[in-house]
């Protein structure tokens, strides 16, 4: 049956082509070059706090901005991981149609990883910094009220407690009822995104495993090398004329050991965490896709209900219209985000793999010089 809304626009049950118009609108906001950027956020200066109940780390979050939404041009606040986690949840709640960047893993197995070791804190700091920077770069998320408060409030806990009572002025928070609506078929382009994300996470997982294996093998190689070097020294002790060259070899091998150690450390601290971050990202994106499916399913179900009950047409269409709006918004946001994400990802990986290559090059150069 051909359906049409009261305003005359034909109803399209497949992926809305009209989303392209929305995309165009959003693309104008995409030109966030460095020159036009008006918000800068940094995470640094980790500090340990020891209280009677617990010990934890806070990070300094510094903001510099010219935006009207901020009262002051500069802010400096202290936040702990809990706060970042809260922010992310709030963003997911209030902007469910958007892809929210991932946080570094919340739980660490005590005893296996030292939560207060320099390396761990530094790795986490970098990840938190990235998290905030990604939000900053997002044309919609960066204007989110919760984000604003996170960056500026002296006492975040007070705000958190008010949380439920405060309604955002920018738009209503969309609540999603998981009303058991089942989507008949995912539109092609989103299905493609879903497939891509699946394969993507898979491949990243494999790379993670390979990198870990390499590090393991390198460490075992290091163990043997550490035994190998001193033997030349011992031999040098036996000889007269040859003692110098033999000592030389021994020293060289020692240097190789150091260089190799550095390489393994760098890989562990810089390369692996980023891989894991992207896997988390992909996971959260898949969840967003599922939510989108939900919305579309609700829309389609309501549409069907309308199609069956011709008399109730004047009332339901507004509901259906709202649904359609939602779906279109969702799709548009998602697509825009995906494009942005792809771009960023490309750059990130470019940097990452180049960095990996660089590290290896440095390793070999160090060994050469020796």
């Amino acid at each position: 049956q051909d359906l049409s809304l009261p305003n005359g626009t034909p109803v399209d049950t497949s992926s809305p082509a009209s989303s392209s118009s929305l995309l165009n609108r959003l693309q104008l906001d995409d030109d966030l070059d460095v020159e036009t950027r008006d918000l800068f956020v940094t995470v640094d200066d980790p500090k340990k706090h020891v209280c009677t109940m617990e010990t934890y780390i806070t990070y300094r979050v510094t903001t510099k901005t010219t935006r009207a939404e901020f009262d002051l041009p500069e802010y400096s606040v202290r936040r702990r991981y809990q706060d970042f986690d809260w922010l992310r949840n709030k963003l997911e709640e209030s902007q469910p149609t958007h892809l929210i960047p991932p946080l570094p893993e919340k739980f660490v197995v005590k005893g296996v990883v030292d939560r207060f070791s320099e390396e761990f804190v530094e790795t986490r700091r970098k990840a938190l910094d990235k998290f905030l920077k990604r939000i900053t770069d997002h044309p919609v998320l960066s204007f989110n009220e919760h984000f604003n408060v996170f960056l500026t409030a002296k006492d975040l806990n007070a705000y958190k407690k008010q949380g439920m009572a405060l309604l955002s002025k920018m738009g209503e928070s969309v609540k999603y009822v998981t009303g058991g609506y089942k989507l008949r078929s995912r539109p092609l382009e989103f299905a493609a995104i879903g497939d891509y994300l699946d394969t993507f996470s898979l491949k990243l997982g494999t790379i993670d495993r390979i990198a870990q294996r390499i590090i393991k093998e390198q460490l075992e190689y290091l163990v043997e090398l550490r035994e190998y070097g001193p033997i030349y020294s011992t031999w040098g002790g036996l000889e007269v004329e040859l003692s110098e060259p033999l000592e030389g070899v021994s020293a060289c091998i020692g240097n190789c050991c150091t260089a190799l150690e550095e390489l393994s450390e760098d890989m562990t601290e810089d390369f692996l965490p980023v891989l894991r971050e992207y896997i988390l990202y992909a996971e959260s994106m898949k969840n967003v896709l599922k939510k989108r499916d939900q919305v579309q399913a609700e829309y389609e179900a309501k549409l069907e209900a309308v199609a069956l009950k011709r008399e109730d047409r004047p009332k339901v269409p507004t509901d259906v219209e709202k649904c359609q709006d939602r779906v279109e918004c969702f799709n548009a946001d998602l697509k825009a985000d995906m494009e942005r994400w792809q771009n960023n990802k490309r750059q990130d990986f470019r940097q990452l793999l180049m960095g990996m290559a660089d590290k290896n090059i440095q390793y070999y150069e160090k060994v050469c010089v020796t």
Partner: protein
Amino acid sequence: MEDCLAKKMEITVSEAEKRTGRNAMNIQETYTAYLIETRAVESQSEGQCAPVESLWRRYSEFELLRNYLLVTYPHIVVPPLPEKRADFVWHKLSADNMDPDFVERRRIGLENFLLRVASHPVLCQDKIFYAFLTQESGWKEMVNETGFQLKADSRLKALNATFRVKNPDKRFTELKHYSDELQSVISHLLRVRARVADRLYGVYKVHGNYGRVFSEWSAIEKEMGDGLQSAGHHMDVYAASIDDILEEEEHYADQLKEYLFYAEALRAVCRKHELMQYDLETAAQDLTSKKQQCEELATGTVRTFSLKGMTSKLFGQETPEQREAKIKVLEEQIQEGEEQLKSKNLEGRDFVKSAWADIERFKEQKNHDLKEALISYAVMQISMCKKGIQVWTNAKECFSKM
């Protein structure tokens, strides 16, 4: 050195061939035969090359030659043969004697052995050695006719015997100690090196997995695809490069092994000296006691406790005729003993002189060879690193184009 054989003759072990035949117990066996080619070096500039002569020998014949040399020239540090069985292998390397890589390395080792002997000022003049190079048939018989086998057996026994020398020559004791330490340190080195090679192999090969995964990943990417794909290719190259690198390193290991075995030969010379010294001391002691006995019989005084003295006291003295006879025998023995002692002393001094000369020669050769070996090892490592830099630079370029 001007007269040594190596200058007059080109020697190569050019080929190795698998053969089957029947051994001494008439059992079918497979073995490898090596082709030895020799050619006289002409000093004429006519451009006329002497013809190449060749014959086939197997490893056991090389062993026979070496054993002959060991027995015949105990004061010389005799060059060692390449190992009989593959030792100090890391997991990828085959321990099989028939493996082509092993055979090839052995061929090089055997050629090296012949060249070492041919450039030794004393050994190169040996007729049996010359015949080994030039006379295919009848060589074995020729060796056995020298009767060296008897000496070989007693030599082996002596090498393993334990005895204490009263006045050891300090230089030889120190040298023996050195050779023991050298053997120990080189075998330790070779063992660990094999483990290092094993681990390094693992590191390189795992990188090959990157190649595969990058390729798979590139299939789902648009702009990143090409960069990933070509980077993956470089990872494959990296993983494959380790095979050649480690093969080259085997050559270094072989050079070390040669000196490991050389250390054994050095030890043998020291032992030989010990043996001679002990022999000398025993003979001297024997002579002294005989002289004493003679004196006692002549003067009738018993200086030292002896069972004979006791029994003669208990059972009565001997007749003067008996005593005379005994004294005569002893005097003959004493004379013999003194001559023997003189010649042994001479032998000993000659041995020390010629052995020490060869030891000095060996020390110089060792220092020179090992220095070169270490340098070439360092060069190998540098080249390996340069290759690494190359590969990762290429990969980096691919990544930058993503």
